[in-house]
């Protein structure tokens, strides 16, 4: 599920959401969307199990909120753990590969190819390695899912510096470490955040899909699977909503950190044209 490339075009991200007024169209779409959903279920006589009414889902959401949210956080912790381990390892590895270029050029194409592997196929193996009921197996799935995108993008960011910027540092007789600290790492930040936003979504989805292959009853993915199997579709949809909300929150927090970090560094992408 390696999805998102750049979630929002940068120029767009800065202008949209700046004032409350900008959110009106989105709010309108939401209201219209849910409204028509509610109405159409009746009008088209859609079967309960295909698509329950939003009002029913909301009721179930409220009624089972304790179970749903605790399951949600259980899964979120798995996703977070995998995110931290996977992204952290990837960034360290990327620094290494950027420092030792020969190794980096040799391994970069392999990392890119590895990124094309459907990691989710390995979920049952992780279940065999780490007890199927333990969160560790899902953390492992999430970690591997995060690893390659963050590695590839971070490495790309570290090695995409204008030659003139490096020349300037050399003219100051700056050592490799200083070049990294003052030029490469700041230049890589936009790439890194871009990848971290992607990874946040992947981690959450990875944890849930990983649970599909087996997991603790406390996990959200299991809740979804079980309630769907028991035809309790309102519960299933409510659980899906929880998953989505947590995923969006995770993504948004990374985006917030990004805004702060990049403002601090001085956003050199001011010139992105619209």
């Amino acid at each position: 599920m390696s999805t998102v490339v750049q979630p929002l075009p940068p120029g767009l991200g800065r202008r949209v959401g700046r004032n409350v007024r900008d959110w009106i169209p989105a709010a309108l779409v939401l209201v219209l969307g849910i409204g028509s959903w509610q109405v159409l279920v009746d009008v088209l006589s859609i079967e309960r199990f295909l698509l329950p009414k939003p009002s029913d889902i909301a009721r179930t959401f409220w009624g089972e909120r304790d179970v749903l949210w605790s399951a949600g956080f259980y899964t979120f912790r798995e996703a977070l753990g995998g995110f931290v381990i996977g992204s952290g390892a990837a960034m360290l590895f990327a620094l290494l590969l950027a420092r030792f270029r020969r190794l980096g050029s040799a391994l970069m194409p392999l990392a890119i190819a590895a990124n094309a592997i459907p990691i989710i196929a390995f979920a049952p193996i992780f279940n065999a390695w780490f007890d199927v009921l333990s969160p560790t197996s899902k953390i492992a799935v999430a970690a591997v899912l995060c690893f390659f995108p963050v590695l590839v993008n971070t490495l790309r960011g570290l090695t995409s510096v204008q030659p003139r910027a490096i020349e300037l540092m050399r003219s100051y007789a700056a050592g490799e470490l200083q070049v990294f600290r003052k030029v490469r790492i700041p230049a890589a930040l936009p790439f890194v955040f871009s990848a971290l936003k992607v990874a946040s979504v992947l981690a959450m989805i990875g944890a849930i899909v990983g649970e599909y292959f087996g997991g603790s009853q406390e996990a959200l993915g299991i809740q979804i699977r079980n309630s769907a199997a028991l035809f309790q579709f309102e519960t299933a949809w409510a659980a899906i909503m929880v998953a989505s909300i947590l995923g969006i929150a995770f993504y948004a927090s990374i985006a917030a950190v990004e805004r702060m970090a990049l403002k601090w560094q001085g956003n050199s992408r001011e010139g992105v044209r619209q």
Partner: protein
Amino acid sequence: MAHAEPAVALSGAVFADRRQTWPGALGRAGVTLLVLAALWGLWEAYRWMGVRTQLTWPFPVDDVTMPHIHTILQALFEPSRVNGPLLISVLLDSAWFTAKEALLGFTLGATFGFALGIALAHSRLLQRGFLPYIVASQTVPILAIAPMVVVWLKSGWLSVAVIAAYLTFFPVTINTLRGLLSADPRALELMRSYAASGWAVLWKLRVPAALPYIFSALRVSATASVVGAIIGELPSSIQDGLGGAILNFAQYYSIQPANLWATNLVAAALGIVFFLAVVLAEKLVVRRSPENVA
């Protein structure tokens, strides 16, 4: 392109890298083989050490958790069930089945994503109204919706393709939008001086300018479509594809671990093949000045 922008695919550069030369490609293939050999060696070394020292962290090491690589390769050329066909032929059939679903999903998703990107590029209002939901759509575990999609469409493999399309369309939409908006304002002025129609500006300027971004997304989507096809098969109880094979061999993992590993190898290969196909297409279609970065 003075400043390299971070609109980078998960799988590499937006613009074509250094020119491919024959000795260069050969050298890279050699390095790849070397690294694969090194990984093989690491695997066997870790396994040997783990068995000897009775390692239990991070996971216990034995024949089930870490079969010998040669055992895995051997299993490919043995029947997977009594008197059945060779595992490798079973897996290749499954891979082909899944590949067809993935290909259809990829085509549907990419086309839809492209069209959506064009629509969004022409209306700031549409962007504000729909982009948040388009982004949020990828946080919804599509796996959970899969059974309903199957019933809706009354067809197993078509719903799998739809699920694959769901994972495919998003990167294409975002990058098409980004690419279309990246046109040089001076080039737009030039088109205005020609009194060019909106249609002409789109197809002669914006879309060609967007191609590197679009291919960048297609590289990601190639993998996403395979992943989508595999996970789409899981709840749909489709036996014929790789998803079914994974579930099947996962059940019997403790008896025959090599089969699941072999299936994963085939799945990995499928993902890589799709990815390479897009990379090849990109080399043929996109011509840009070589990047100048350190």
